[in-house]
């Protein structure tokens, strides 16, 4: 084997990227491809009580409108894992771990609701 690629620069993609010939996801066109539009709440902290999609559905060219109500069957709770993290109890047992002043670790730790082991 007289050719090794280990440690050798390979500019295989450069020509495409430099000449506009590369294909990024947004460059792909397929037959009958449709375009999604996302509507997000204009309020940073608000409770959504209802969504009336009738007018959006009635717009010419609209294929479908999906809201949580129509998609709930696929939606599963996102697990919120704050603790325990692997190695957390070991860290807590290090002498002085709780007294590290102004370290990211102690601030992070103090912001947690309930310390698990220390």
């Amino acid at each position, binding site marked *: 084997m007289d050719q090794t690629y280990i440690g050798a*620069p390979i*500019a295989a*993609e*450069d*020509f*495409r*990227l*430099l*000449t*506009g*010939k*590369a*294909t*990024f996801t*947004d*460059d792909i*066109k397929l037959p009958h491809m449709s375009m999604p539009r996302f509507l997000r709440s204009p309020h940073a902290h608000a409770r959504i009580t209802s969504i009336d999609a009738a007018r959006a559905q009635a717009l010419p060219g609209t294929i479908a409108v999906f809201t949580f109500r129509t998609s709930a069957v696929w939606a599963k709770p996102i697990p919120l894992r704050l603790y325990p993290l692997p190695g957390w109890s070991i860290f807590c047992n290090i002498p002085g771990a709780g007294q590290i002043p102004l370290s990211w670790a102690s601030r992070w730790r103090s912001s947690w609701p309930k310390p698990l082991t220390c």
Partner: protein
Amino acid sequence: MTLADFLRDELNLTGTHLGCEHGICGACTILFDGEAVRSCLLLAVQADGANLMTVEGLAQGEGLHRCNGRFTRNHALQCGFCTPGFLMTLLRSAGNAKAPPKRSSERRSPVTSAVAPVRTHRAGYLASETGG
């Protein structure tokens, strides 16, 4: 319809990329009658009769423009998404080469100043600075 959408969707010139779509990032930069412009901030009708150049126009046949060659030699691109914007901005700068600034307070090189309008989350522009 914006000029960028017209280039990409109607003319199928997808080398011009859209990043922020409101004139900040510079990925969609093209030459409009020789000036570097954000194609996302122009309407297609505004370009009626204008002489446009996109990144596709940089490559002649199988050859590369000298800007392109220097980019690849100096590893000035990573994912390459914003690279067309850098190329077109530099091309505009190269066509209007100015003398280096005399003020010592100007720390950036002319090339860095030229591409400063292009914002990217990649580090490629640092390499492009050495491409001259």
